[in-house]
């Protein structure tokens, strides 16, 4: 079996285990390439039936408009259900406080909105598109990752995970984060997208956009970022290698307008995908700390 067939079959198997083991699962959909790949895999797992879960998007309010347009198009095209949790609602309800200053981001706040959305809908399993090659804490996480009733991950108390037998048993209030594409690399995802001709938001491909330099990274020049006299807005040819919201995702210089050139670019790249994520640069254990709080 070719490696992409192997990875695909493994992911479909995991998605079906979620369907079989949980009462109220959800698929966390960010509009990025990894969760788009999950939706494609879910079609292979459950069609001609409907998905046994809704798509859930945690909207920070600072999303790229292209991502939101793509999300709505995909929902309409698949006929599946979409639930949106708004970070703005958490702010309005006084549950979180918006960060201030030049480096303000809603990235940390979305964990609270996510946990609220999970509890509001009673989700017992949340499927996510995290990959172990992304980051060193993620390299440690199980495919079925049990979170306590505060959504917390305890890396020291992970369950053994044997063969392909997944134990999804939990108490009410707890939930399991499930990562069907744990064993995929960034390049695997791109090769799969190419093979399966999966549609993506336009921002993954090279385009011209206004950007500003922040901590050595090109950020989209948008009102979501506090831009002042110190900043110089530049119009450049860029693309996004990873897509979070606009306050934490940096663009890379690129002329790649097609999948083949993107794949060539990634092969030649000397920095990792998460190198363009401001949220991982906060500290040595940034991702681990966020996961302990309930981040996906």
């Amino acid at each position, binding site marked *: *079996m*070719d*490696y992409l*067939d*192997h990875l*695909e*079959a*493994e992911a*479909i*198997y995991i998605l*079906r*285990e979620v*369907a*079989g083991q949980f009462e109220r699962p959800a698929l966390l959909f960010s509009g990025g390439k990894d969760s788009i790949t999950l939706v494609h895999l879910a*079609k*292979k*797992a*459950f*069609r*001609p*039936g*409907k998905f*046994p879960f809704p798509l859930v998007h945690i909207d920070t309010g600072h999303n790229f408009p292209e991502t939101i347009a793509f999300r709505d198009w995909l929902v309409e095209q698949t006929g599946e259900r979409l639930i949106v949790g708004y970070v703005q609602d958490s702010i309005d309800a006084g549950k979180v406080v918006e960060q201030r200053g030049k480096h303000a981001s809603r990235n940390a706040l979305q964990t609270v909105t996510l946990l609220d959305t999970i509890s509001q809908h009673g989700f017992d399993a949340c499927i996510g598109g995290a990959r*172990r*090659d992304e*980051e*060193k*804490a*993620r*390299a*440690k996480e*199980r495919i079925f990752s049990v979170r306590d009733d505060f959504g917390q991950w305890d*890396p*020291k108390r*992970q*369950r*053994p*995970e*044997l*063969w*392909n*037998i997944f*134990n999804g*048993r*939990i*108490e009410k209030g707890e939930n399991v984060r499930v990562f069907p594409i*744990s*064993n995929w*690399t960034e*390049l695997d995802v791109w090769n799969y997208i190419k093979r399966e001709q999966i549609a993506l938001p336009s921002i993954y491909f090279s385009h011209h956009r206004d950007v500003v330099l922040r901590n050595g990274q090109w950020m989209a020049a948008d009102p979501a970022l506090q831009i002042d006299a110190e900043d110089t807005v530049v119009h450049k040819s860029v693309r996004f290698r990873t897509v979070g919201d606009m306050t934490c995702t940096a663009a890379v210089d690129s002329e790649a307008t097609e999948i083949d050139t993107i794949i060539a670019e990634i092969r030649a*790249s*000397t*920095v*990792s995908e998460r*190198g363009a994520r401001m949220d991982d640069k906060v500290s*040595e*254990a940034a991702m*681990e700390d966020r996961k302990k709080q309930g981040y996906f």
Partner: protein
Amino acid sequence: MNILKFITAGSVDDGKSTLIGRLLYDTNSILDDQLEAIQQANRKNDDGTIDLAILTDGLKAEREQGITIDVAYKYFQTDRRKFIIADAPGHIQYTRNMVTGASNSDLIIILIDARKGVIEQTKRHSFLAKILGLRKVLVCVNKMDMVDYELAVYENIKNDYLKLAAKLELPDVDFIPVSALKGDNIVQKSERMPWYHGASLLDYLEEVDFEEVEQQGWRFPVQWVVRPQSADLHDYRGYAGRVLGEGLRVGEEVLVLPNGYRSTIKAIELDEKSLNGASDGASVIVHLADDIDISRGDYIVSAKYPAKTEKSIEANISWFENRALDVGQVYLLQTHAKVSKIKIPEILYTFDVHSQEKLLDQEIGLNAIGRVRIKSADEIVFDEQQDFPANARGIIIDPRTNLTVAAVLFQSA
């Protein structure tokens, strides 16, 4: 291109993480920002070289203590193969995490410190490899630089290990002398060990054949029933699952277990497209010619080579929790998509991990390996390890805590 999954096992400080770091570093699989992060973490060895172990010790607690607590998965690729490495802890306290990594691997690399030779952890990990049914063992005698690259040291360790392997009846063992720290025989053949004529570690991993034993027939554990019940598909009933074994074909006669109904495969689908057959590992949807009541947890198997169906089974188990096996307690046995209530009324014996002898011990506690009788409320559909490894596995869950407390292997004696 295919995928090789392997695990590194060994005692604390035998250099597992360094070996992996070296493999990744020397195959240019570490990117600049990751290397920079390692350098910033500033853990340096005595000779000033950077500590590649940091690459896999992804948890704060691991970096604080300089030990590996849980499995880290690392990925790299050459022109020949894709590799998934499970870097597992050596510490006895984290045996269950090592078992997690080992159960998902095709091959186990056992590291032995050239200065220490075969020690207790070597025996423990080799025994676990045997119990988990790993077919292929590669012994890397590491830290050859610390023993002046002496052939005699290597030969002695090799002979000691071969004795252990014979006792455990490990089918297939290979050896490579290496220095992970200095990079000897990792990617390039080392000039400092001219007496060694075998492959470097990377060459070995690219070429090693890891096919499982010949499994006759196939198993199709049903994970999910696809029933759209829409106006145009109201008769549609597909069984979704993943193929184990030699593969299934349209028109083949099948047996449905445990109820014993017979039918034939009417159609096989993937992504709403019809297939003539599906091979080992494929996730597909199967349609049968007859309307039979089949739900999640049932098995569709080849009628020619049926699986066993029993309520009382002997099995080897490896225990993961502090709280010892309770003979009166109800546990759950999960095999693929089936969860059954079980009791373990009898501990037949346990194994001494160091001498491999059978002990008439009546307790199975943390890290113990034993032979038990399992009594199940439902009929369990299974095979024995020697006949059909992919269907000889299960886990035990404690319903009081929901924890996975043991690995189960169905195997005669």
